[in-house]
């Protein structure tokens, strides 16, 4: 039987939407993007920035909504928390979804707080059956409430638990398959985690189900030698671009975008980065057709 989710987004028949090359929309670039209409295929907004009563954010959102396809990306769903689901938050999110009519809605496969204390950080949890069962149930409730499938993003992490008994990619695969949700695969986060937890990043890419991968994130990080912090404050590094190329070769075309959240450069620098990503994409396409 088709779930309501399948009716909304028919990814399950093998047809995955490809929306090209986008950018994380940040207030620093609002006016420039509106004035210049740069070569961007789509934009991703941080949902929580627009869960406000009024003012500039919503004014600008309406301007962008008329000009670009928009994906909604959240940081506050608290999917893996053992607190009750925050229905007030989901209600506000659903209102925004109905207003924006986004390409899709995503959040992170993590928890941000417990006992009503929100850290506003993306916190990891053990990769084991108990966590899978808990998260799958939560995602199913969220998808039912939003009446559409969601994408969950792999997060960057700095510690791992003795209670884990599987790889991160096995964990994500089980969640996506059981909850019937999709993956926003952050290539930078895979690289960060491969260095922080010492695994081969290609194993990760090859370990998640192709049909579930709908979007990629690319971002910069801070390399401290023995560990990496996912800071989004610098250009995407060559090692991550290499991994992106390998991901493209494996997954085929997947909508991709750059996240920049600090140390903001001129817009043209981000657009140049995006052009470099387009070139990698073209190279892979050409290699695969020749």
């Amino acid at each position, binding site marked *: 039987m088709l779930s309501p989710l399948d009716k909304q987004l028919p990814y399950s028949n093998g047809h995955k939407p490809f929306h090209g090359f986008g950018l994380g929309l940040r207030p620093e670039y609002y006016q420039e993007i509106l004035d210049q209409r740069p070569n961007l295929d789509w934009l991703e907004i941080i949902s929580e920035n627009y*869960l406000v009563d*009024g003012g500039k954010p*919503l004014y600008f959102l309406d301007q962008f909504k008329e000009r670009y396809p928009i994906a909604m990306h959240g940081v506050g769903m*608290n999917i893996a928390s053992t607190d009750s689901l925050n229905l007030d938050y989901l209600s506000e999110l659903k209102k925004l979804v109905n207003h924006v009519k986004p390409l899709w809605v995503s959040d992170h496969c993590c928890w941000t707080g417990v006992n009503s*204390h929100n850290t506003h950080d993306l916190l990891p949890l053990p990769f084991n059956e108990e966590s899978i069962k808990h998260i799958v149930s939560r995602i199913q409730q969220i998808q039912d409430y939003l009446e559409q499938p969601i994408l969950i993003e792999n997060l960057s992490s*700095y510690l*791992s*638990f003795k*209670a884990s008994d599987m790889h991160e990619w096995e964990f994500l695969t089980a969640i996506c398959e059981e909850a019937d949700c999709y993956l926003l695969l952050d290539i930078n986060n895979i690289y960060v985690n491969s260095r922080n937890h010492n695994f081969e990043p290609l194993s990760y890419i090859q370990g998640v189900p192709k049909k579930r991968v709908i979007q990629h994130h690319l971002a910069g990080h801070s390399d401290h030698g023995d560990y990496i912090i996912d800071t989004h404050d610098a250009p995407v590094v060559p090692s991550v671009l290499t991994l992106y190329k390998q991901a493209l070769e494996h997954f085929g075309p997947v909508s991709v975008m750059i996240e920049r959240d600090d140390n903001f450069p001129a817009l043209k620098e981000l657009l140049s980065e995006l052009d470099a990503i387009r070139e990698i994409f073209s190279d892979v396409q050409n290699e695969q057709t020749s």
Partner: protein
Amino acid sequence: MTLKQLQIDFLASINATVELNSSVNQNNFTDRLCQQGKITPEQRLSIYQNAYRSRLCSVIDSDFPHLGKLIGDDLYHPLCQAYITAFPSQSPSLNSFCAQLPAFIRRYAPLKGHTIVTELCDFEWQLRTSFDAKDSECLASDYLQSIPSDQWPSLSFKFTHGFALKYYSMNTVEVWKALSKDKQPEITKMEVPQAWVIWRQGLITQYISVSVDEACLLEAAQEGKNFENLCEILLEWWPEERVPERAFHLLQHWLQLGLLSQ
């Protein structure tokens, strides 16, 4: 160990103030972490501890851009830490995280009694609140011309969502302006508290000082008093024959500023 208990202990460890590289093991939480490479579990946990406090400090910096300049780093950083500990965020959004800071700072021992600090904090938070306020449909500037004469006495008014009337006993707004230009402010006490109106006009947050009769009228209008009541209030400052003119002038001024809504 349930997932719930793991999350509670993890959060308690994040919330604890532990120096980077410290060997202190909060709640023995690090016993549950893997030893990987050269980085110890304590160092790994400290990344989350530092990120937590740093992120919330950044929110305070953003909502109160000049408070730190006024009180200096030696007072500002402990204030931020104390606030983060006293008022952990309980919302998925950070928009309201700093809502309690103006009240907190009034009873925060190292700054208690420093009126300029509490007033500047209040002013900055009001700017933020007005900025994020729900949109309102303002009355047109010719609204008063459309009111039939027999309806004037009972006419009452509604203010836009971002509107606030504040009284500051120090030259708070002047201090804020100086700080915003990175200038050393001259701090003085006003002879009488000065009334300020803060609101959002379109997408821009605005503020103006208002005279004492206008402030009283604004307060009364906010309370729902009608035009006849407002005229009675003005009798304290104006001769009876000039009251209607003064009242009309102020209402027209409020309409032009975009203070009144449908």
